[in-house]
């Protein structure tokens, strides 16, 4: 079983990296970019039967810093 964890900065938290990416895109001539926020994608390869609660606990304890970050879990269909 695989799960993807998306870790993103909470709304309102300043994202200097996103701002720098935004400026670079503008520098390349892309004019239609309103805002950029950078985050992380973490892919987990999990034993069958790992519960949603366990994955959420992994996020709260390590994968995300909930002071500044939100997380979203996306379980991927097994092939």
């Amino acid at each position, binding site marked *: 079983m695989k799960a993807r964890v998306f870790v993103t900065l909470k709304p309102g938290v300043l994202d200097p990296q996103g701002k720098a990416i935004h400026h670079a895109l503008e520098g390349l001539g892309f004019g239609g970019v309103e805002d950029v926020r950078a985050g992380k994608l973490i892919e987990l390869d999990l034993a069958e039967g790992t519960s949603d609660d366990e994955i959420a606990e992994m996020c709260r304890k390590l994968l995300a810093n909930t*002071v*500044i970050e939100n997380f979203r879990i996306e379980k991927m269909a097994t092939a």
Partner: protein
Amino acid sequence: MKSAVLVFPGSNCDRDLAVAIEAVTGRAPAMVWHRESELPEGTGLVAIPGGFSYGDYLRSGAMAARSPIMRSVADAAGKGVPVLGVCNGFQVLTEAGLLPGALMRNAGLHFVCRPVGLKVENSQSIFTSAYSPGEEVTFPVAHHDGNYQADAETLDRLEGEGRIAFRYTGEVNGSARNVAGILNGAGNVLGMMPHPERALEPAHGNTDGRRLFEGLLEAVA
């Protein structure tokens, strides 16, 4: 005083801190590897050094905060043992939940490496008792992730309870309310981005950092 300096893979200020502590206390600290599960018995000061523990993987300080030795550090902190975290050590303390808030990428995105002015906001703590109230001192900083952030309620509480130990006198890294160093509620845990151990000898350019260690020695001895 028996002291301990933690060492993580990627720490690079551990020896600087050890030299500072030995210079002031006259006793070399134990260097404690992150895989250890217990601090040496009778440890009266724990110092968490600067550097790039675990290559700053995931987030600065995130992996170090979950290493085996940190459980023993949390126990010691809970019993009132002084814990000083400098630079990456501050990041480790916030990641471990021993101090509130988080340290994010510098607002200007640049690694900042220079001496900065600091105002001593609280000169009553065990770490800052050798400074005068409101005194301005100069310590070097050297960090990429020193932008202190916390919600307004937390910042208000830190200010109201006198838990902001040091503030930058000018803009350095985007930190909320120019916070450079904070204390825990009990006052025995200090995390700060500037490096007092790099302002110890005249050859360092100034000796403002020495009094932090001298004051601490006097306060706990």
